[in-house]
């Protein structure tokens, strides 16, 4: 399969009905790996469904669903190695799971419990895990882009065979950070993948009101970088393009921009009302005709790798696994109030020591 930048149509491997439109052998993916990819898709969706219910039940304050974007996230994270670095945004938990974040940790993050690697310090946008090289995102759109470039610059300075991937949405491409980050990475030939999940909405503003270019991928041209437009609901296409860009970066051939053309099913977040801005029928069309999980399942069925029995077995297995994960998260305590001052600096400053005494008096401890 030849992967070319700046195509007019999104690069795809599977048609909407799951039949291959390209030679599969060139992907170099084994049957077991196909099954593993499907498991990730199903797991990511199930984790997300479960997480969102926690908000509806009033047990969590916020949630940004990835539903509809699973193929973009799983397909782009699978080519990463353990040593590669991942900068997420508020909608990249699928990629974080592939990188090694445990579902129990994710639930603890949503609930604000101690098992959360970020100890409840962040709205549930994604916790960091240093050992997995997942950097926790802030809520400030686009900031992670220049940071990721700094990490990629450091990887090149240290001559390591590692890369950095950074996730952001279509809205973030309007931020200065996108321009600055793309420019820096191109100038230094940094081993970086700029992965744009174009779900067509920045909260409510549509892509046509966000940018005057037809695609986001073509913006790469202005930086002297390759830009790839890929069908973000086609996990094999996302995998193939991401692998191509990862190999390219790893072998010292610099950064790439990937635009994964996809669609989010949920509102921007649990605090949003998407009925105010979505045209009627649009969501249904994407859900019914282009769903990334169903599409890949159809592919597996066509390849005689999947059937209803296997599906039921997998769903039951994932459900049980997540029940255990949620229980583990819920058992984990809320962080101690006295820890609120910790980690502002490496050590408490004299002023924070004083505040610690004030807080202790307030809490009666």
């Amino acid at each position: 399969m030849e992967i070319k930048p700046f195509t007019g149509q999104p690069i795809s491997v599977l048609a909407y009905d799951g039949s291959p439109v390209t030679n599969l052998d060139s992907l170099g993916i084994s049957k077991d790996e196909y099954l593993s990819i499907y498991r990730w898709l199903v797991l990511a969706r199930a984790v997300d469904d479960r997480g969102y219910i926690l908000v509806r039940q009033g047990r969590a304050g916020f949630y940004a669903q990835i539903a509809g974007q699973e193929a973009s996230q799983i397909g782009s994270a699978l080519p990463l190695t353990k040593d590669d670095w991942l900068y997420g945004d508020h909608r990249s938990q699928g990629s974080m799971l592939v990188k090694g974040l445990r579902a129990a940790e994710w639930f603890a993050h949503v609930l604000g419990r101690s098992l959360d690697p970020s100890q409840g310090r962040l709205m549930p946008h994604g916790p960091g895990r240093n050992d997995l090289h997942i950097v926790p995102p802030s809520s400030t759109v686009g900031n992670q882009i220049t940071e990721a470039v700094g990490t990629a610059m450091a990887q090149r300075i240290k001559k390591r065979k590692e890369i950095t991937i950074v996730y952001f949405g279509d809205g973030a491409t309007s931020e200065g950070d996108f321009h600055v980050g793309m420019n820096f990475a191109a100038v230094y030939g940094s081993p970086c993948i700029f992965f744009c999940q174009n779900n067509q909405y920045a909260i409510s503003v549509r892509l046509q009101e966000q940018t005057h270019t037809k695609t986001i991928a073509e913006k790469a041209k202005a930086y002297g970088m390759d830009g790839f437009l890929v069908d973000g609901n086609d996990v094999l296409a996302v995998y193939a393009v991401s692998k191509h860009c990862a190999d390219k970066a790893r072998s010292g051939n610099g950064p790439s921009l990937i635009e994964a053309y996809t669609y989010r099913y949920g509102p921007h977040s649990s605090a949003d009302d998407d009925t105010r801005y979505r045209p009627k029928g649009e969501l249904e069309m994407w859900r019914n005709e282009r769903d990334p999980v169903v599409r890949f399942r159809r592919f597996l069925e066509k390849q005689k790798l999947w059937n209803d029995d296997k599906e039921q077995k997998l769903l039951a297995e994932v459900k049980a696994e997540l029940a255990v994960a949620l229980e583990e998260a819920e058992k984990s305590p809320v962080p101690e109030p006295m820890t609120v001052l910790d980690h502002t600096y490496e050590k408490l400053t004299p002023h924070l020591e004083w505040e610690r005494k004030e807080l202790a008096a307030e809490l009666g401890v």
Partner: protein
Amino acid sequence: MATAEVTKTQTQSTMVQALRSALLEEMERDENVVLLGEDIGPRGGVFLITEGLIDRFGKDRVIDTPLAEAGIIGAAVGMACYGLRPVAEIQFIDFIFPGFDLLVSEAAKMRYRSAGQFACPMVVRSPYGGGVRGGGYHSQSPEAYFVATPGLKVVAPSNPYDAKGLLIASIRDNDPVVFMEPKKIYRAVKNEVPAGTYEIPIGKAAITREGKHVSVITYGAMVHVALEAAEIMQKERVEVEILDLRTLQPYDSEAILETVGKTGHVVVLQEAPRIGGFAGEIAAFIAEEAIGYLEGPIVRVAGWDTPFPYALEKAYMPNAQRVCRAIKKSINF
């Protein structure tokens, strides 16, 4: 050894030389120390702080960047998370604001939001302050923004010896440091700077001049305005004590209490505008913790609450006369 002989030699240095020697020694000691900024390569920085360093350490460790402060600070954050110790130069602190978001939203909060898993051991060096006919965009003193951001440390040296020791301490510190260099005295003030490595601890103030009647609490280039005022007041038999804070966040509250306890009269001097300025924090701290020592009002001396002017900077900047008037207001209460 010959090198031991060299380290013992003390020479009169400018702050420019002192800062350069701090960078050079730290880069030799720790290969994770890298520099990045605009024009810091062959040009040596517009104030020549990094002169010659690219020849010694190469392009991978002395990185000339595109003209984008958000990129410089953002990249420094990503490098620091990875384990490097970047020292970023912002050409003038007036230009830091495109990178302000990266400093306050990212560098300052990375340790906290990751519950200590990630840190940003980075320094953002930048010349600040007036007196060089720089007008409104090459003269400002924006320390209050940084001091008001938990997670950042803020340092402002007043002389070459302190500048070197504080910069070395800032590079070795595991938290992000905004290192404000008083450009008016980059070359105007000299003192003895040892060739060897030494640290001046972050968070420790110093008594620049001892006195018993009134304390002037200040930092950076204003220390020299305070010294001038002290000479004038000496003729009127008023002995002025000058406390140079050196670090603004975390500031040395013990040293403040000590000098206030000694003199009972306080003037807080800063170059930045008065309203919402750092001097207000010091005044409030003294009012809360040392009201019993006070025999007169805490008086602030600051720049006017206007943007920084070009042609009229002498009328703008705090001077010795303004400090003397404040001292009299405090002691003649």
